[in-house]
């Protein structure tokens, strides 16, 4: 998709398939706090390029998990959490998956079902498959007809799932639908999972980026912790720190007691050692430095809010234009959905029209990246969607 966009010579072209934040000028954005901290790191002559420990930079690990679980997390206070610095969110998922395949629900039980939402980030399937799981299933999630969460379908799948199945849950800003359960719905989900002994594996790639508020975006994970679950949470700092190519991620492990968690970490070390030995230093240093300084933390929070607010603005502007144009259908889902992505509801034929006739690039699923919208292209995109919906059935 990106390659086709690059080669397109039309001056009106818009890339709504990009997977990264863009400014209102359509440019990548290195966060100001990141620039500042990189300069600090460059000027610090006491730093070198020595190996990090296998599990990663200690200051990074502790801060990263603290961000996910909250300063006042009972799990942190009770010392029953562990962290593994990983190569992005993908790396965290993979280490967690490899560990679960070896040690969860027996030893090397490749038959344990793994449930991925329908739809989900397409790489989820591959991560668990390559980790050795043989039975990867979907759970109902997106209701195309009502353009929202199919809660009943989801809960039914959880009721029917074999005991001990693993469920990949999106902590916030579901990719690709942008549709999250409400707190009430999360409570229902947690209740079923507890009763049926299902394992929650959270994927948290957008904390802060979704609502602009770190605590709000972590509500689901923290709720599950407060309900006494043992869980994994794969965190990515690609989006909320804009550190995409530095591969900064963290696998947070929440257990029942400190000893168990230490055993888990020691086995995760073995897995890390045969995967990448030890993680890259640069991105972890940037995040650790930022999170451990109150001043830099505040600056970062401001940068995150800048990104989240721009996305929210684009959502509201796109919706209001479509409604003003009288585009057939309802468009409230554009502002009700959250995060980088939106499932517009456009069908494949309409998407084809957008790409071929209007030079607006989006996924065949109708998914758009709100970051591709700018004040300059909003009108054109809105008009094009209007055309697609009215001309093509």
């Amino acid at each position: 998709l990106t390659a086709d966009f690059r080669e397109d010579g039309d001056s009106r072209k818009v890339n709504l398939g990009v997977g990264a934040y863009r400014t209102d000028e359509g440019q990548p954005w290195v966060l100001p706090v990141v620039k500042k901290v990189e300069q600090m790191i460059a000027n610090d002559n006491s730093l070198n390029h020595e190996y990090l420990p296998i599990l990663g930079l200690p200051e990074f690990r502790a801060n990263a998990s603290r961000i996910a679980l909250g300063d006042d997390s009972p799990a942190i206070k009770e010392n029953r959490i562990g962290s593994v610095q990983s190569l992005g969110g993908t790396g965290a998922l993979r280490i967690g998956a490899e560990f679960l395949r070896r040690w969860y629900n027996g030893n090397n039980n490749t038959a344990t079902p793994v449930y991925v939402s329908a739809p989900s980030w397409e790489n989820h399937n591959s991560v668990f498959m390559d980790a050795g799981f043989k039975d990867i299933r979907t759970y109902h999630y997106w209701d195309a007809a009502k353009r929202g969460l199919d809660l009943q379908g989801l809960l039914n799948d959880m009721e029917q799932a074999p005991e001990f199945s693993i469920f990949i849950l999106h902590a916030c800003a579901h990719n690709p639908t942008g549709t999250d359960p409400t707190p009430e719905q999360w409570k229902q989900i947690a209740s079923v999972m507890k009763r049926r002994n299902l394992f929650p594996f959270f994927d948290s790639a957008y904390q802060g980026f979704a609502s602009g508020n770190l605590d709000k975006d972590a509500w689901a994970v923290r709720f599950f912790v407060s309900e006494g679950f043992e869980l994994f949470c794969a965190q990515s700092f690609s989006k909320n720190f804009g550190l995409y190519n530095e591969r900064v991620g963290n696998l947070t492990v929440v257990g029942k007691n400190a000893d168990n968690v230490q055993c888990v970490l020691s086995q995760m070390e073995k897995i890390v050692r045969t995967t990448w030995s030890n993680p890259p230093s640069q991105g972890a240093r940037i995040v650790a430095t930022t999170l451990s300084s109150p001043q830099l933390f505040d600056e970062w929070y401001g940068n995150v809010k800048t990104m989240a607010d721009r996305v929210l603005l684009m959502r509201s502007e796109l919706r209001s234009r479509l409604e003003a144009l009288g585009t057939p259908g309802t468009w409230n889902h554009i502002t009700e959905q959250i995060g980088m992505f939106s499932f517009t509801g456009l069908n494949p034929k309409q998407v084809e029209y957008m790409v071929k006739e209007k030079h607006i690039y989006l996924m065949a699923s109708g998914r758009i990246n709100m970051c591709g919208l700018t004040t300059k292209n909003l009108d054109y995109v809105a008009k094009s969607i209007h055309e697609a919906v009215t001309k093509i059935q």
Partner: protein
Amino acid sequence: SSWWSHVEMGPPDPILGVTEAYKRDTNSKKMNLGVGAYRDDNGKPYVLNCVRKAEAMIASKKMDKEYLPIGGLADFTRASAELALGENSEAFKSGRYVTVQSISGTGSLRIGANFLQRFFKASRDVYLPKPSWGNHTPIFRDAGMQLQAYRYYDPKTCSLDFSGAMDDISKIPEKSIILLHACAHNPTGVDPRQEQWKELAAVVKKRNLLVYFDMAYQGFASGDINRDAWAVRYFIDQGINIVLSQSFAKNMGLYGERAGAFTVICSDADEAKRVESQLKILIRPMYSNPPVNGARIASMILNTPDLRKEWLTEVKGMADRIISMRTQLVSNLKKEGSSHNWQHITDQIGMFCFTGLKPEQVERLIKEFSVYMTKDGRISVAGVTSGNVGYLAHAIHQVTK
């Protein structure tokens, strides 16, 4: 009740665990001869000047942080291939190779092992030299391969058991995989001579083996990058389509930045494209795409003539210091009055030295002298300085007299 009650405490990593034990030791005379990280003559980590310059150049360009392609930074992968194969290499010029960026040497081996497991259907057997780097075995095993061994190190002479190696290799079932250390064998420091490499090439060709070269020390062994890559280049010239893992951890001091590469020499450019597509399919569910920092630094150095020249000088400097420490260790052992033959210390090459010390002697060195090394008697010569070589010789003499 917990899901994890039955999870056993894993043993500390044999190599990295040494550093962790060293850090806990309060003895002021302690020496860390465990992990293979270069130290200057003050025992301090050494950030290469060319690395600092490259970092400054990169910072001034104010680049963005967008995802790299799955296969990594193109300028880096191309330069890595050229460094290993040589700019005049037919394989390089014709494009009948694919190189993907990897998470240093380990990540490269992991990609390689997984690739072979998936696509090399002829055999599950990987033949390692005896001994080999401790992490080779679990990497290949986790990928679903089986480990076998060929004779390599002769503990009686502390040098290469060439006839044993040739004997074993000539009996390896056809189409098995054989792993060779390109230079500065880890852990022994024992490398074949060029004449011996020629014979090895002939026998692996005769047995129709898939050759996997692990090159983690190019430049670091002899101080000359071309000399250290000689075996790799010779094999390719002999028509052997090797696979290759490279690391820039040691030769550029980029340890924690995780800069490495995995290369497959193919029949033609078209095959290379197909292999590349499959490597990407392997990489994506592991970590999506690789980290930029180390690759940018390495690329800047390799592709900027002045920096490259400076790098070659600095690599030679590191190699030379190690060679001089070997010499000083031997002369100090003589001064201590040791009657043993320590010639292997100067015959061996690269960062590591297989001292020949037995596990009980190693244990005494750790406990009584706070000299840390791995149980196999391997020392990282890089951890030896003119300031502590006397103490080391004294300690070794005490446990071996």
